[in-house]
């Protein structure tokens, strides 16, 4: 299963982090620092997998963001990369040509989409259409609630 997902910018700022195993805050920050320094120093010509402690880090760079997924030793690494790519494609469909700014200003929506795709470290939905359908249902319901609140 996936242990955590991290999005960091080229300068090392965290844009999104989601841990699927319990991990105290201090350890999370220590891990983020270690992992970012390891990955930001990799050259573009090497493979996208890295062994770190007992786990494997699968990362991919999309424009100015690094998407990192940490998987266990016996997981399929190429599939983890594809999971990350699936997440990026959903973000792209939802925001329409997504860029880092979209993720900065709408990070809560990015988390909602991540929650629809990955739960407890495993992929729950591999159909982009279903993911976006659920998210738009939830958005519509939230908007209805907002309008009702404003009227009432």
């Amino acid at each position, binding site marked *: 299963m996936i242990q955590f997902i991290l999005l960091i910018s080229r300068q090392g700022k965290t844009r999104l982090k989601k841990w699927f195993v*319990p991990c*105290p805050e201090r350890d999370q920050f220590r891990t983020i620092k270690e992992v970012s320094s390891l990955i930001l120093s990799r050259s573009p010509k*090497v*493979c996208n*997998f890295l062994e770190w402690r007992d786990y494997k880090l699968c990362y991919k760079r999309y424009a100015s963001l690094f998407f990192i997924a940490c998987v266990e030793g016996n997981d399929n*690494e*190429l*599939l983890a*990369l594809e999971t990350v790519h699936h997440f990026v494609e959903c973000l792209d469909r939802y925001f329409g040509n997504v860029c880092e700014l979209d993720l900065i200003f709408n990070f809560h929506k990015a988390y909602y989409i991540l929650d629809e795709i990955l*739960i407890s470290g495993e992929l729950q939905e591999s159909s982009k259409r279903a993911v976006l359908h659920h998210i738009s249902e939830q958005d519509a319901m939230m908007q209805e609630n907002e309008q009702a609140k404003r009227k009432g």
Partner: protein
Amino acid sequence: MLGHDASFAYIHAVKLTHEKNLFAKRIGYLTCNLFLHRDHELMLLLINTMQRDLQSANHIEVCSALASVCRLVNVEMIPAISPLVFKLLNHPQEAVRKKAVIAVHKFFKIVPETVLDQKDQIRKVLCDPDPSVMGASLHVLCEIAKAHPAASKDLVPSFVSILKQITEHRLPRDFDYHRMPAPWLQVKLLSILGVLGTADKATSEHMYEILQECMRRADSGVNVGYAIIYECVKCITKIFPDHGLLELAASNISRFISSENHNLRYLGVTGLAQIVQVSPAYAAEHQMVVVDCLEDPDETLKRKTLDLLFRMTNPQNVVVVVDKLSFHLRTSVDSHLRRDLAQKITSLAERFAPDNEWYVNTMNTVFELSGELVPAETAYNLMRLVAEGTGEDDAADNAFRVFAVNTYLKAGRQMLCKNTYPDRGVPGREN
């Protein structure tokens, strides 16, 4: 999230989840998911809200609560929450059923007994008409299969038939990802089949045909196809060996290992390491490529190649392999890698040493380079060998003891300067 402490806000997040307003509720749950963890003291406040939301009529509230359950549940909460979740396995909305199944998966990891009592319900989910729900049930079934393989063997025909349906494109088009039908489901099914077919000829025979078909169809030139092929290779090396399938797996791996793409080379090396464990003959044709990978500037590839070399060792090439491993032990700085290398060299030396002098020399090198990472039994074994000899030939044994004592005297002198040896030289001097 960006490093500022936000603990003042946690209690407000919990209060938000009590709100009726869906917007506030979702934000409350999201914040709790991000900041709380299962042993946090505010969890008690959340349990009641989650129980209420799990029974709510609004399926979106149920979904938010289920997502939090998956993230935050702990041992004390399970008796309270699990009956509600099991009831939700029959909810009309497939999104709810899907999340409920994954919550069940989480329960299994924490307290397996809760789930094993309800095995029949979970098996029913496997036959769910919605493919996403069926896919989610595979995660639980995989864990159950790993824990109790014998009990799950009767499901093998169902898994094989589901895999067949997927590869024949019988799922809705939405599940196609880059023209590959439902790759995640395929990989998960393959890993379950691998677990269930281990060392069992009858069960494995059911799978040979579908494995061949799966590998053939996955060969499409997309990354996802390669991922499926890699998983097939892993499965083939785990189940009862079949010559034809191993040939097919080996030919695919040769393609990976000689490709330009770094990721494919990595997968090729890892796959070859697993094939070699089942049948060492396949390693011979790729020895040159493996040596090339060892000189590659990519750190990850080098490590994987060292792992492959370790598995490929036999009495003929042990000296060369241990040389390479010692060289990397000397030059590397990462403590995990060094401990790993020290263990590998020790185990190879104990299994395949061509003669005792070489064994002593190799062990001395390991102690010198990484003494603190080697367990004490290794040193005791070595000392026992020196003290008792091999029992075959007294004269040879004596000569060996003299040789060992000389090397330790030399090392002892160096130790007085460097202080890296944990007191090994002393027993040698007694002789």
